């Protein structure tokens, strides 16, 4: 006889694993910063964060079976951020090679919650925003979140090799951009 287990049948630890409150407490800040680096504007990041947690709560049953919780929540956040960017700035896709950065650069300079005091930090962020979407996403996840390439590949729906390549290309482009502006 095959026993079909539901959430109610799971042990207490497994139920806690699926509790939305725990996920909010744990991932609210890192997800906000991840989303903020993608959509740039604070107000947009706040909306996307809320949409992300709505999606997480809606599909929380999947998480009970998910082995990689962090990759799962980051994937939802990334998709929500990309969806938001699509509605704001024409078509944005992780596969897009074209430069979608100019609207984001404008947002960076116009946002109330952007600190413009440190020119190098600002220039660094501008350099990141000139990258294609996939490279920017991979760079942010690796550089700021320090996620392993395996998780980044799972989040972006690519391979480990592609994630590593994108990260190194992104680093090269960022340093070249800054050196070019400074010279």
């Amino acid at each position: 006889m095959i026993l079909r287990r539901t959430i109610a049948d799971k042990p207490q630890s497994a139920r806690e694993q699926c509790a939305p409150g725990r996920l909010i407490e744990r991932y609210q800040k890192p997800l906000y910063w991840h989303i903020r680096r993608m959509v740039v504007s604070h107000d947009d990041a706040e909306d996307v964060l809320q949409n992300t947690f709505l999606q997480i709560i809606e599909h929380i049953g999947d998480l009970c079976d998910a082995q990689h919780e962090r990759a799962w929540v980051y994937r939802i956040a990334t998709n929500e951020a990309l969806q938001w960017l699509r509605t704001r700035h024409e078509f944005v896709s992780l596969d897009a090679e074209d430069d979608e950065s100019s609207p984001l650069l404008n947002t960076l300079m116009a946002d109330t919650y952007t600190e413009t005091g440190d020119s190098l930090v600002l220039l660094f962020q501008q350099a990141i925003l000139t990258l294609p979407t996939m490279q920017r996403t991979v760079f942010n996840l690796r550089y700021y979140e320090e996620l392993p390439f395996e998780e980044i590949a799972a989040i972006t729906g690519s391979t480990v090799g592609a994630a590593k390549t994108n990260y190194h290309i992104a680093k090269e482009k960022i340093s070249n951009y800054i050196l070019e502006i400074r010279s």
Partner: protein
Amino acid sequence: MKQDIFDQVGKRTPYRVPEGFFEQTEKNLQQLAVSHRPSALNYRRAAHRTSSPRTWLYSAAAAVLLLLAVGGVWQYVQQQMPVDVVYVSDGNSYDSSWEDFAEADVFLDNLDW
């Protein structure tokens, strides 16, 4: 030189948030979680969702066994069926069987050709 840039900047970003933003957001999200709690039905659906590699393996094995069973039954039925030989004349070739039949027939033999 290139690495220096990353060392100088580190993980600093120009992004800031309003005072008390995260505390307020956590409260809002917790309220959202209570008001949008998915039903037990959704949990059960998710728990029963069959997308694991093991499920795919079982499905593939079942499909192969089904194909083998259908193939075996088909083979058996083919062997049990009587073999009918149907002669089809193309109209051009000479049919010698009719001549043999005519020679053997008593009534035809009595006819004055």
